[in-house]
């Protein structure tokens, strides 16, 4: 299977260099080839596992608790202004 690495990098929001596109492309092709061995197994009717220890409907009591102060959260951000995360203009 041939991967369109430019498209995937765009989906992943990573700007790859020409060199990275080439080396990753080759390496990922090898890795995907290794993964194709799974096709040897017949898995029709097998339920997929997403968690090894099945837990369902985890609820907690609906109690009022204090939340983390906004300032503390904003302080880990590289740019903030007036109580918000600051990013480049989105809407013209």
């Amino acid at each position, binding site marked *: 299977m041939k991967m369109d690495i430019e498209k995937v990098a765009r989906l992943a929001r*990573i*700007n790859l260099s020409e060199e990275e596109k080439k080396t990753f492309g080759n390496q990922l092709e090898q*890795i995907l080839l290794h993964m194709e061995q799974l096709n040897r197994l017949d898995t029709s009717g097998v339920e997929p596992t997403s*968690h090894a*220890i099945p837990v369902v409907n985890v609820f907690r009591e609906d109690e009022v608790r204090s939340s983390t102060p906004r300032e503390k959260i904003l302080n880990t951000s590289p740019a903030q202004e007036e109580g918000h995360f600051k990013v480049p203009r989105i809407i013209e």
Partner: protein
Amino acid sequence: MTIHELTIHQLHDLLAKKEVTAREVTEALYNRIRVVEGQVQAYLMLTEEEAYRQADAVDQKIRRGEAIGELEGIPIGLKDILCTEGIQTTCGSKILKGYIPFYDATVIKKLKEKGTIFLGKLNMDEFAMGSSTENSGFQITRNPWDLKCIPGGSSGGSAAAVAADECIAAVGTDTGGSIRQPASCCGVVGLKPTYGRVSRYGLIAFASSLDQVGPITKDVEDCAILLGGISGFDPMDSTSVNIEVPDYKSFLIKNIKGIRIGIPKEYFIEGMDEDVEKSVQGAIDLLSQSGAEIRSISLPHTPYAVAVYYILCTAEASSNLARYDGVKYGFRSNHYDDLLEMYSRTRAEGFGKEVKRRIILGTYVLSAGYYDAYYRKASQVRTLMREDFRKAFEEVEVIVTPTAPTPAFQIGEKVEDPLQMYLSDILTIPVNLAGIPALSLPCGFSRKGLPIGLQIMGKHFDEGTVLRVAYTFEQSTDYHLKKPPIT
């Protein structure tokens, strides 16, 4: 005996008898770090001021005549993947440089409450992706047994620091072998608990359905003590399981008479190092002589483990690591004109090669048209692998295998060949996929003098029997008492 060489249980006795103070112990460890750290490079950051403050608090308590707990006043190291309030946490990545969490991981909170002293944050593969710690965004950690070799990964800093006596014990994390493989490479004890045994709250996520926190220690008794210190249900982690934490020390019995041990033939793979095979066979013989019943078993889907794991873990990683976008944490690129470019440049400059490779792979296997062929297929084979273990554990109580197919390899040896690097995880990965506990402990040395690890796997939440078998083996051998040649 010098202080830095002691174990948790030995130090606890000395502290309780007032033969040494927590401050003296902490000083001894920082002195040791100053002597060997230039060669090993296990720590990303030392937190001396805070450590001495913690030590003085313990000493005051002892002076007041109060009893102290087993972990009180014990200086340990922390893998830099665990959030520590007010202390930079990088996860080995430049993208988190300067990130100072405003909260403690539950594991950190529990250990703080028990009076444990934190010496500093330990090196790791970036976002725990790697088997050699060479993927760290900051530095290469070296194996104390041979400085030309890798310490294993991703908790390589943690295992190397324990082996070089730069901390009494350490906390690591294990997604596909990241505690056990470095423990094996560095000749120390490492345990990945059952999924759900230890809270993941505040553990920076790589693959959430596989990640688990666990102890790296100098012997099995310490492993039991530290496991008890971090285990337990946490309402902040909805995947943590509400099952009572037993007294793990009660399983430290030197007796395995009648215990049924399974040896899976699929784990003795082609290309396995001769010295590893010999040491592990010797260990199995010793367990048999100690009264265990050895049975040959089969885990038929083992050969598919690497393929399943690298589909699932990269898929989960591509989703988990989407949060590093230059908005909320740490690093943001200076080169952008619009929002999209800010994201993609920040991620291009902040992530290292392996992380990018895995995000690309994970994005691909989840993308439209490929989801069924990769992610769904891998999740189904994961079910088959879980079934393998369920059936095996109807016959036996624990399963014994090598931890890794080879001893520590050389720095640089596999760095350009990711598939070869991935294949070195083949013996540890199935445990994470099945969610069961497994421990690695030293069982010999290669002809070149490198440690070899024995892996003991148990049933879900049966860390106790794993510890009992490990303890019996350890108490019949002296591999754990050997020290690396570093001075």
